[in-house]
Each structure stands twice: as C-alpha cells, then as structure tokens.
C-alpha cells in the first residue's frame, strides 16, 4: 500500500506573500478585540468603583504605552470592520423580490450603520 500523500504546506505559509499575510492579520484581529475587551471591562470596574478610581484609570490610559496599544487595537478593529463588511453580502445574500441586492449596496449600508453607531456612542458619553 502506498504511503499517505505528505502534506506540502509549510508551517510558515502565511508569511509567503501579502494576500496570505493580510489573511493572517485579519484572523488575528480577534486577538486584539479580545484584549481590548479586557481593558474595557477593567474600565467598567473602575467606573463602578467611583470617580476617584475612574480618574486613576484615566491617568493610566494617558500613558504613552496604553495610547500606543489603543492605536494598534484601533487598526486591527478597523481591519476587522472592513473585512467583515466585505464578507457580509457573501454570507448573507439579500434579495428584494426577485432581484438580488447588489453587494456594494449591502457593504455601503454597513458603513452607514458603523458611522451611526459611532455617533450614538460618542453622544451617549458626552454630548
């Protein structure tokens, strides 16, 4: 009996070219979203603990390290949003009557929703 066909893929295949690297960065966005969620829950804990605890945490958030962390997290979050919106019409094809709704319209609607959600959140915390 012939030996099983050996797998040819290397363990670093995702470093080979940009489409692969982008795929891997997209998949790893979830790691940064989860790490950010830990920071978010810490903030909620501090808000529950009172104004002094919150002020202390705001001081921590002002450190250059945490600003840099949030810049990286934001970049991955936006990569996630953009790639997720691109995938929405593929995962959930919408029809209006017999006519399929064009993918660009569905993607565009997601961006409008993202903008609306962002404005609402900012209004809730300040305005």
């Amino acid at each position: 009996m012939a030996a099983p066909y050996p797998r040819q893929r290397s363990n670093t295949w995702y470093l080979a070219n940009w489409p692969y690297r982008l795929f891997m960065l997209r998949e790893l966005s979830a790691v940064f979203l989860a790490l950010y969620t830990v920071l978010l829950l810490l903030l909620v804990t501090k808000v529950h603990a009172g104004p002094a605890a919150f002020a202390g945490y705001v001081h921590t958030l002002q450190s250059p390290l945490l600003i840099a962390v949030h810049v990286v997290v934001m970049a991955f979050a936006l990569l996630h949003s953009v790639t997720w919106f691109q995938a929405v019409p593929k995962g959930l094809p919408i029809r209006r009557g017999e006519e399929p709704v064009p993918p660009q319209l569905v993607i565009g609607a997601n961006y409008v929703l993202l903008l609306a959600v962002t404005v609402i959140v900012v209004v809730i915390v300040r305005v």
Partner: protein
Amino acid sequence: MRRSSEPLFWSLFSAGGMLTALLMPALILVTGFLAPAEWVEYERLEALVTNPLGRLVIFAVAFLTFFHWAHRFRHVLVEMGLRRFGLPIAVVCYVAALAGSAWAGVVALG
C-alpha cells in the same frame, strides 16, 4: 456521525463578528482616546454602566467578543499547522471564552 457543536460556535463567532465590526471602533475611540483626553464625563459612564440595558450591552459585547475570538483563534492555530492539537486547542479556547464571559457577568452586574 456524531452531532457537531460547530453550528453553535459558528453562530457565536458570526454574531460577535457583526457586533464588533459595528461597535468596537466607537468603543476604542471613547475609552482609548477620548477618555485619556478627559473628554468623557464620569457621570455619563456611571449612568451607562448602572443602567439595566447598559449592563446587558456590556455583558453581550464581552461575551460575543470572547466567543468570536475563541472560534477564530482556534481555527487560526490549526491553519498555522497545529492540526494535531485540534481538540485541546478548541477546549482551551472555548473554556477561556467562558471564563472571560463569567468575569464579564460579574463586572457588568458591578
């Protein structure tokens, strides 16, 4: 063939992916940039985290983000060549997401 738990975890992955795609940039903007700029008012945040709907949203965001992470990270490790350890990786990822969600529940109830 044994029944698969894949549809359940895929649903959580999908729901988490949609929610984070729409909400995370706003949350990061507020807590990562506007809060350190001292632009966010404590009273507003306090009202938000003690409001029943606010508590539910905080828990839902954390729960779905953690399970979105678990599913995606599990599959990415397998793609990176760890197929042999597929089962323990899945268990560790989902248990971590469950532990994170339990913590989120405690935090949200405050």
